[in-house]
């Protein structure tokens, strides 16, 4: 007989949960097999200690619904090794640093800080923009504003 089977049978027999014919067979087996008898005695010893402990400590059996719900609801957390957290932190830092480096490199040629915007240097129209060829100017006849082509104005000697 396997030790696991004997363990279960001895406990069930002690609890009176075995059918009579199975209980009889178990008793015969234990009577004719001294090693099994010794093993059964060790199981019964653990059972009696367990029973004695439970009787002496009623607080062990006081289980509140909250505790039961928590035990059933929360799955056991798997302990993650420390190196996985360290690897995650390093990866995040590396990505952040790389992104910051490229962003800084791309922006270094076009300074758009307020001081640059407020510069007093004359504004030169960008050649790649269609609006570079036009500018707003006052109508010399006093009728209001007008849009003047830059190249035409330069030909006429206007500022």
């Amino acid at each position, binding site marked *: 007989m396997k030790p696991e089977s004997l*363990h*279960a049978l001895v*406990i*069930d027999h002690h*609890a*009176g*949960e075995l059918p009579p014919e199975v209980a009889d067979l178990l008793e015969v087996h234990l009577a004719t097999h001294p090693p099994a008898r010794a093993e059964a005695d*060790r*199981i019964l*010893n*653990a*059972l009696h*200690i*367990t*029973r*004695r*402990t*439970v*009787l*002496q*400590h*009623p607080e*062990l*059996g*006081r*289980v*509140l*619904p*909250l*505790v*039961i719900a928590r*035990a059933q609801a929360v799955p056991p957390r798997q302990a993650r090794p420390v190196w996985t957290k360290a690897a995650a932190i390093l990866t995040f830092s590396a990505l952040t640093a790389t992104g910051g480096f490229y962003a800084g490199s791309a922006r270094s040629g076009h300074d758009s800080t307020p001081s640059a915007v407020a510069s007093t240097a004359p504004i030169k129209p960008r050649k790649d923009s269609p609006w570079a060829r036009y500018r707003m100017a006052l109508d010399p006849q006093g009728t209001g504003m007008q849009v003047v082509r830059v190249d035409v104005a330069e030909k006429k000697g206007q500022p």
Partner: protein
Amino acid sequence: MDTTNQPPLLERLFTESAGDLTRYFARWHGGDQGVQDLVQETFLQMARVIRDGKSPKCARGYLFGIARHLSQAAWSQREQSKVVPFDAAAAEIAAPEDDERVTAAHETISALEPLQREILELRFSHNLSYAEIAESLGIPIGTVRSRLHHAIAEVRHRLESELNP
């Protein structure tokens, strides 16, 4: 349901289980008058169950299931209101000194899951059968059996490894 069978069932349950229920509540709460109130409330709820035509598979187990809920509710209420236990002295009646085997077993049982500890309590303190424990806790009999076997195996393993290294 035949109403003529109701009183005998309740009477039989009361005769068989009133003392057990008193001990059950006393282990939870200590005491005296409060415990008797809980016992009465348990039978009152059982009477309602019978009156409503429900027929639990295991009446005694069902009765302990009611007692369990009442006991937990009373304990929670008492913890919230911080009222003194029913009879603190009675709760400390049987407290012989532990030997090292009981101490080791206590540590092992404390680490078991709550359901397993309840099974041990109902089996060893109140001598409930597997079927009654299953009905009381609302779980299959096989679960009761396997958890009980596992708990005792854990205690045995602890005792043998610690006391006979």
